[in-house]
């Protein structure tokens, strides 16, 4: 992947540092122009820990000045997330309370719009934006595995094994999306559309990396997973119906149909066996699970509102 196109002063200074292979100490003093600049910078720093960038030294992943910048950006972002998404205390039994918290969310949905009225151009635009996560589907959650004790660790792997195609690369969920993109004539190379995505997509992606990359935030990472899986089956059905209505290729429809069935399983596993086991072993993580779940739902709602407003669908 190429280094993303700068969106302001900070991402411009960061891109220059990555190209030169050295991060000057002054980088920490560069103020972000706006939220898009700040979140693109954080996204770029995170990407050094996923797949890196063409022509950028892999050593920079652990370069102290870049880590210091990442830390500054993360602290502000986490404080914002905690301010925006303050969860209620979950009752008992835990699984029912978590399902209820998620089901009570009435966030905006792009899937319903795609099902009924989106144009082909609008739908292809959505698919391009979805590449930022779907091409690394399940990866941010994989960081969490070694941070868990026996019960939740085994439970998470039971779900992740399915996400990763049970060892068959042809069934890897991110690869199913690649096949869908190729069939639609869209680019399927990793990060191809990063210069086009609205800031809301960067924020969603950064939240998953933030939760996944910090052991301290393991509860939020698994709460995010639970909310993601528990709001996937029915919307995936709507997406599949919308894609069929628009005559899009079967490979892309198959991606969403796979998620109707897989996520009907995964939501039960994520809520009951994964988050349930985590909270059983670490009761203090219950509030963090709820925080992560609300962050997942709230950030998707912000993205959906942005898109529906742009499409004149509100």
């Amino acid at each position, binding site marked *: 992947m190429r280094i993303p196109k700068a969106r302001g002063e900070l991402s411009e200074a960061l891109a220059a540092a990555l190209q030169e292979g050295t991060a000057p100490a002054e980088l920490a003093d560069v103020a972000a122009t706006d939220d898009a600049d700040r979140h693109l910078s954080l996204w770029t720093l995170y990407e050094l820990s996923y797949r890196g960038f063409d022509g950028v030294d892999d050593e920079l992943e652990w370069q102290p000045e870049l880590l210091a910048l990442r830390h500054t950006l993360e602290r502000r972002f986490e404080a914002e997330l905690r301010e925006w998404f303050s969860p209620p205390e979950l009752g008992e039994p835990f699984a029912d309370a978590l399902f209820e918290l998620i089901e009570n969310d009435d966030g905006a949905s792009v899937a319903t719009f795609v099902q009924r009225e989106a144009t082909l151009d609008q739908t292809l635009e959505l698919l391009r934006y979805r590449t930022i996560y779907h091409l690394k589907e399940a990866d941010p959650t994989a960081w969490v595995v070694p941070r868990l004790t026996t*019960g939740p660790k085994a439970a998470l792997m039971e779900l992740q094994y399915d996400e990763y195609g049970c060892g068959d690369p042809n069934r890897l969920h991110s690869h199913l999306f690649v096949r869908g993109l190729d069939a639609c004539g869209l680019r399927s190379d990793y990060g191809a559309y990063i210069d086009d995505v609205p800031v809301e997509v960067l924020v969603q992606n950064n939240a998953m990396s933030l939760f996944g990359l910090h052991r301290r935030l393991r509860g939020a990472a698994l709460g995010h997973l639970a909310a993601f899986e528990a709001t996937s089956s029915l919307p995936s059905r709507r997406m599949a119906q919308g894609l069929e209505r628009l005559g899009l290729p079967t490979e892309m429809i198959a991606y969403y149909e796979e998620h*109707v069935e897989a996520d009907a*399983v995964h939501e*039960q596993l994520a809520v009951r066996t994964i988050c349930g086991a985590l909270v059983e072993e670490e009761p203090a993580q219950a509030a963090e699970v709820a925080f992560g779940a609300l962050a997942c739902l709230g950030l998707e709602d912000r993205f959906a509102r942005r898109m529906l407003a742009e499409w004149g669908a509100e």
Partner: protein
Amino acid sequence: MKEHFDHPDVVVCPGGPLLLRGEHVIEDAEGRQHRTSRPVSAVCRCGKSADQPWCDGTHKVLPDKLKP
């Protein structure tokens, strides 16, 4: 430290599907056979799934009295 963890082959989810761990062949009401294809499968219990015999999450939009 806990030495034994419950890990049942079949789990009835309250108000939701039946989870099946491992490989199984399920015969539906019309006598058609369906082989499981993932480590854990969710079998519909509410009868309203459009993807029989598998769960598709439809139970969540049913009124409480129609939930399994």
